[in-house]
């Protein structure tokens, strides 16, 4: 059976197509002011030739803009990311979603049920938006930020956490001819410290699963690993975890890529 999961994020809209427990396709586009028609188009492209009719039974939506996607099953980001993380890496105990406009941490029980979550969507520091703004200030492609930082000898110290003030700091550092890789490494360290502080606030220990578009940035991932002194679980397409979780929430599969485990999932 084919299922669609949609994640209408603040910056990007993601759609995945699942064929039973297998990921059959995915797409991501910049979010627009009018997500309904955009998502309809994305679904049509992914399901071309499948005679797929979107309904509440085979199509689920999450993300800040999910209410615009009518006629679908709806679930919160927290639920979607819990389910997505659990499906990809069943041993996940802490799920961190680093999205475009917010950072969330979810605590999971060994059976995958959610016990607690912390959300920061009041402040843009450490979000995808933050890194996009810094990339623009540096004249670097946002997708290249992670790789670019890897050659840094000594990360620059960024004193202010606020995105607006940090942007001024970056501009000053560029004017002082500080190498870009060192500035980016400094930004990554700052982001990592904030994420580590969030992890420090919870008591759950175990595998930490990193999701969201920011997890595509290798520099940020490595910096968080250094802060936490721990290897993180980062899926190949971390930006798709929410959409995947939405699709999985429709039931009918267990761990992704390991064959269906029957309705309700789990062993």
């Amino acid at each position, binding site marked *: 059976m084919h299922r669609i999961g949609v994640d209408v994020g603040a910056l990007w809209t993601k759609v995945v197509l699942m064929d039973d427990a297998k990921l059959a396709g995915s797409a991501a586009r910049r979010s627009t002011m009018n997500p309904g028609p955009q998502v309809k188009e994305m679904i049509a492209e992914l399901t071309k030739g499948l005679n797929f009719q979107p309904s509440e039974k085979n199509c689920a939506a999450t993300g800040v803009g999910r209410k615009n996607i009518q006629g679908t099953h709806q679930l919160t980001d927290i639920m979607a990311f819990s389910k997505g993380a659990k499906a990809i890496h069943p041993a996940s105990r802490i799920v961190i979603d680093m999205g475009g406009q917010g950072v969330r941490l979810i605590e999971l029980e060994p059976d995958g049920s959610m016990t607690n979550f912390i959300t920061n969507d009041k*402040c*843009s520091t450490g979000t995808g938006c933050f890194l996009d703004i810094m990339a623009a200030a540096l004249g670097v492609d946002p997708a290249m930020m992670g790789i670019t930082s890897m050659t840094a000898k000594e990360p620059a110290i960024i004193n202010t956490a606020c995105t607006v003030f940090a942007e*001024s700091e970056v501009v*000053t550092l560029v004017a002082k001819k500080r190498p870009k890789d060192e500035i980016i490494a400094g930004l990554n360290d700052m982001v990592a410290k904030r994420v580590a502080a969030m992890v420090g606030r919870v008591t759950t220990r175990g595998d930490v699963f990193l999701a969201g578009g920011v997890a595509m940035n290798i520099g940020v991932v490595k910096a968080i690993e250094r802060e936490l002194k721990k290897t993180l679980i980062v899926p190949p397409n971390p930006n798709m975890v929410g959409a995947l979780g939405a699709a999985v929430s429709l039931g009918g599969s267990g761990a992704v890529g390991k064959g269906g485990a029957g309705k309700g999932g789990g062993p």
Partner: protein
Amino acid sequence: MITAGIDLGSTYVKCVVLVDGAVKGHAVYPTGHDHDATARIALRDAMKMAGIEQKDIGYIVSTGYGRRVTTLANETISEISANAEGTRFVAKNLSVRTILDIGGQDTKAIALDDKLNIDAFQMNDKCAAGTGRFIEALAGVLGVGIDDMGPLSLKSKAPLKITSTCTVFARSEVVTLIAEGKPKEDIIAGIHEALAKRLAAMAKKVGVKKEVFFDGGPARNVGMIKALEAEIGVKLVVPERPQIVTATGAAILAAKKLEKSGMK
């Protein structure tokens, strides 16, 4: 006796020349990249206005974010002390007990006791949401000059709510409101209200007794004054030149220093 005060802010450098207890010269310049160079230009203009030369100045005190960068000053002082001193001078005969000083990158709320000494203060330099940068960033999105924000907002009949705290998110919110065709004046009035809420909370933390003095660049904005008055619930005392209160305080502290040392 002639002294000067230089306030090197993150956004503007302000300079005041004080001649025998009266402000005779003042200048305001965008900070730019070289604080020291800007400070020299500001001092030159303030001296010109006062009709004096640098050799006439007995003592110079610098304050503000970049106070240690300039080599002009004989001494530096924190902006909290300088601002309180400036307020005591500017609002001499009033019963001001609370000061709200909004800068480009920081905001200070200061409470004075009945002897006008600093009793408590709050400072926000961590988050742009409660500073002048909030208005500046959103004015940029709207394509409205910073000096036009106040007058435009007064035309608003129904201010719109800006729900985001973060300046960056508020920027996206304003972009959406513009795209929805919402009137500019209603958006601007909403921006002032959002900032006023933050500032009022700070003022209340240090305590609002008697009169509240409002200075710093945003105090030139009539819309900001109106929104703050509505939020705090008292009429604000706004000086004629709200940008130079801190620099004036630095110049006065310089004069006091000279007097104490027994020089002319």
